[in-house]
């Protein structure tokens, strides 16, 4: 019997605590598979700050740190600077990375920290019950924007890749999506590239992944994937925003 697909050894036996159809599980698998395929698992540190994925240290089969809300890039800096031979990645949501932790994100990129940031953009605060996020779409109703996001009141959603692309020391930035299998495969390629750049000592890399939050959005998992494609992708164009390796 030849194995076509099996659960990654990069994940622990622990069942995921995410809601049905949540994209976190898909991205977790892609990271775990990448760490195994690049032979990094036994010297990797995963950093999960506050958000639904705060329990990620239970799921990735490597050293894990739970960080304060928004502070993962600073914690990653501390670890990577004193243990440069380790592979350090943060796994952050949009409230974490683009609201409370904006400063930590921008400055880690500016310093060119040799870390990998996996950024889950699902346009909502999932863990706390579906509140408005910096990435919530215009018109999108959440538990703290019951009338829909209003540009005059809450401003436009933050485009993180575009923002970080203005920073010369961001080595690799790509926005992907996990709404269907071809895009999941592209996301994995991006994650793999980001980790490979860290192995090669290239500096700051981030993959922004458009992800579904069916419970927070109050839609079925299948509908959530359609929402990514039809609502999120037009505002958040997929693609490579910086690639130091490709510019040579």
């Amino acid at each position, binding site marked *: 019997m030849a194995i076509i697909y099996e659960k990654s050894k990069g994940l622990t036996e622990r069942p995921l605590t995410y809601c049905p159809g949540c994209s976190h599980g898909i991205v977790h698998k892609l990271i775990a598979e990448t760490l195994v395929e690049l032979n990094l*698992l*036994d*010297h*990797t*540190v995963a*950093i999960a700050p506050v958000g639904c994925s*705060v*329990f990620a*240290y239970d799921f990735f*089969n*490597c*050293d*894990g*740190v*739970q*960080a*304060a809300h928004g*502070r993962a890039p*600073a*914690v*990653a*800096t*501390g*670890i*990577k*600077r*004193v*243990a440069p*031979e*380790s*592979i*350090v990645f943060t796994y952050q949501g949009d409230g974490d990375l683009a609201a409370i932790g904006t*400063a*930590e994100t*921008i*400055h880690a990129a500016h*310093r060119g920290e040799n870390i990998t940031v996996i950024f889950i953009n699902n346009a909502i605060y999932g863990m706390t019950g579906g509140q408005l996020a910096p990435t919530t779409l215009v018109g999108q109703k959440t538990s703290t924007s019951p009338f829909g996001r209003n540009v005059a009141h809450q401003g436009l959603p933050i485009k993180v890749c575009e923002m970080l692309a203005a920073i010369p020391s961001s080595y690799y930035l790509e926005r992907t999506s996990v709404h269907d299998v071809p895009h999941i495969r592209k996301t994995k390629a991006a994650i793999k590239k980001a980790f490979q750049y860290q192995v090669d000592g290239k500096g700051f890399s981030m993959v922004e992944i458009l992800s579904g939050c069916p419970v927070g959005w109050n839609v079925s998992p299948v509908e959530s994937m359609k929402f990514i494609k039809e609502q999120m992708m037009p505002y958040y164009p997929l693609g490579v925003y910086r690639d130091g390796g490709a510019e040579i």
Partner: protein
Amino acid sequence: MKTLMKGNEAISQAAIVAGCKAFFGYPITPQNEIPEYMSAAMVNAGRVFVQAESEVAAINMIYGGAAAGVRVMTSSSSPGIALKQEGISYLAAAKLPCVIVSVMRCGPGLGGILPSQSDYFQVVKGGGNGDYYTPVYAPNSVQESVDLTIKAFDIADKYRTPVFVVVDGTLGQMMEPVEFKPVTPYQIDVDSFATNGQSGKRGYRNMVNSLNLSAIGLEKSNFELKATYDEIRKNEAMYESSVKDGDEIALVAYGVPSRIALNAVKALNDKGVKAGLIRPITLWPFPDEAFKLPASVKIVLVCELSMGQMIDDVRLALNGSVPAHFYGRTGGVIFEPEELVDAAIKVVGGGK
């Protein structure tokens, strides 16, 4: 061999001697000599120095460095320490060792940059969330700043806790001769906790975590912290006391103001008022032992550069045995020995 050094620089060099592998800081007056010194000395020693984007980021870099199992230090001053409190609570919860230097300035708010002790509560009573304490060392000379900074690293490792060294701006700027003796650092078992990316080598993975959603589980971890704090209380309180049988009054002061209080005690004795000085060296654990006073002592005068903070702990230690009075100046004003003499004579009962 003794060298003449400024307090802030001596603390920095002490950290290097103690084997501090990484310093993460952010500028704020009056502690800037520490990151300035470290920015060169750490790099020259092949160690890590990063100037963070904020105090919040700096303390979280400390969290990362400590999680990776190396000796780390940050420094700041009162408003900056306020910002670090979130991270300090996390460090305490996750049982991560580190040393935090606070060169206290006056507040509240932006306050001023002059010397003060108005952040006793901030370091002794926490400020971050949750049931935690941090050992606090309060030296009163440049040499003692060196010795206690080195000790702070050992205590941090031994009990797996953040540890404070607090001085006021005076001591930070004061130059005195100091000596650095060779250090044998406490050996911490890094493999038992560190998330340094060596799960392959050590054969198991480590987790650094302060989240616990199970009530029983979180209570258990609070009980564990309490047990550690009880050990620290039992073993680590430090003080100096010149109070002896026959004294009528005990003055209490810490840090540089204790040197002023010492002069006041001498002057009181010259005037025929029998007085002694109690100097807490650890502010937490508070040296309660020092307040088991001879029966002759009828009154205590607590002298602080604040509106009265340590006096709360003095009263708890005295447990009603004798009254505690307070004399303090604040806003950056430093009391003169004569003021303390007058205050002491007034509380002892005047007319002598």
